[in-house]
């Protein structure tokens, strides 16, 4: 693979974006670069990343915390809350609850903040074709 890499990439049709039939003409790349650098696109990107990235970090941390507690905090997890139901169970069920809530929250955020921006940009690019 390394030797191939050294050869570099001639922009042939076969190396095109996702299907060989579509030629990669510079003009088309220009359009994408211009769209990418527009203020609207920066807003769209921010609307997605500023929501999805911290939330991903949060739920992965919360999940790993739960796994680590199960491993290394036995006496805490074993505390009974109600009858035979202990802290470990309550936290496990809380994982279900937070998953449902995050899914619902993201869907709401995306419909309000991401979709309108994405559709406006897409429509503009299609109009400029």
């Amino acid at each position: 693979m390394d030797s191939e890499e050294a050869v570099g990439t001639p922009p042939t049709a076969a190396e095109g974006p996702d299907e060989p039939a579509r030629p990669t003409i510079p003009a088309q790349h220009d359009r994408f670069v211009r769209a990418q650098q527009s203020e609207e696109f920066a807003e769209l990107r921010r609307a997605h990343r500023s929501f999805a990235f911290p939330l991903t970090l949060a739920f992965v941390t919360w999940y790993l915390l739960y796994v680590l507690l199960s491993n290394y905090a036995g006496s805490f997890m074993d505390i009974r809350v109600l009858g035979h139901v202990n802290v470990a169970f309550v936290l496990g069920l809380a994982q279900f609850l937070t998953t449902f809530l995050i899914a619902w929250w993201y869907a709401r955020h995306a419909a309000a903040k991401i979709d309108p921006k994405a559709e406006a940009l897409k429509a503009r690019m299609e109009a400029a074709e």
Partner: protein
Amino acid sequence: MTNPPIATGTWHTAAQPLAAGGGAGDHRTLIISLFSVFVAITLAITVWAGRQTKDATDFYAGGRSFSGFQNGLAVSGDYMSAASFLGIAGAISLYGYDGFLYSIGFLVAWLVALLLVAEPLRNSGRFTMADVLAHRLRQRPVRTAAGTSTIVVSIFYLLAQMVGAGALVALLLGASGEASRRWIIVLVGLVMVLYVTVGGMKGTTWVQIVKAVLLIAGTLLITVLVLTKFHWNISTLLGRAAEASGKGQAFLEPGLQYGKDSTSKLNFLSLGLALVLGTAGLPHILIRFYTVPTARAARTSVNWAIGIIGAFYLMTIALGFGATALVGPKAITASNESGNTAAPLLAQEIGGGAGSTGGAILLAVISAVAFATILAVVAGLTLASSASFAHDLWANVIRKGRTSEKEEILTAKIAAVVIGAVSILLGIFAHRLNTAALVALAFAVAASANLPTILYSLFWKRFTTRGALWSIYGGLVSSVTLVIFSPVVSGNPKALFPGMSFDWFPLGNPGLVSIPLGFLLGWAGSLLSREAADPQKYAELEVRSLTGYGAH
């Protein structure tokens, strides 16, 4: 020695509680009838779908004609495999709380797919995961790598399903059933190849939908019956399970399976990591997002899937603990040491016990549902791997884009037949392993080899072809190698090769090492590339993936 993850049970065909029961003959006839009805209906759907399958978009992506809800059901059908139904119920029934981690990890994992992967993938790809990478990376080496890892992950997953099928057959037919077990695995393989080659994605999607509805209905029925028995008091159910387990309250606390020593605790962490990061790298799940018309519909389908799968995994608690309380660990391990048959045994017990009509009927219903589950999942896996072979490896690497659509689809169909044959062979020879643990290995490979490259491609502008190759091959080779040298394969009586010992890697799941390695290699490979990332190609991918402009 660490505990091999619920993994690897020894196969006991000698002890068969069911064969001894008086109703053995009845439930067999009933299961065969119910299962035949399912196969007949789904084959009819397949033929109907096949007639409507004309071009590559129909064959690979069901014409992108499914609604978010329909695809949500189909995604759930693809995801709730034998591992979920038989494996998790078995794991909980034997190890109590520790088995519950599977349910949680398998569900939380969907958030990665929802927040980061489903929509951009739908916007920028056509038929396979590699389509997305090929936008900005050099197409041929990257498609070769992605195609290879797709096929490896799918085969691990297929193996798990076939093992589940084998466990069921042994349960139903008893020690005399060795020949029948082979025939049934051959039958499962043949039907799945028919679904894929005749019905394509459209047929396979409908099979998943039918199966998802049946599985949810069957699980709901058993759950309601179990909970009614305990007067809808979860605490009573847990208490009775703890009592019957012989372990007391420890059965409901973390650590029964993974708490022995520091190595087994690391193994638990490793498993947890693989579960949560694996889903968004599973090829047969990723290609499902191409069956809907828009990214928004892809999002809707993930949300439905989270609801359906979450409800299902909540019910596995009743299934698993119910099996311990009502069937008891002795009868469960006597039937299958890794617990794969706990759910059908519970169904029989709750219907009135072995020999009763109610028991025979419920056992038949649940077994038929489990077969339907296995059949649908293997069809999805076969479609994903044959699509990747035909579209990535054949059409774009071997033939370098100079093929017709017709030839590509024919190649996919031939690949489906070959993959079907491989999985039949695997199913016949491999039957010692536990199905949930095997699937967890597939998750580890997917999280190590596929997820880093998908995320870097979509979100990191300096990612290069070399980064992708290092990450995919590095993640793939490290995870598979570590599995080979793990306690799952050798070194203890429960391993795949119990007589040998080359188990120098102590963890049953490689995720803890191979997943960070996959991410690290993708980063290092990109920084050490001689060619810089092409900002123009990244601009194109980023704009397409976020706006849906030019989506297929």
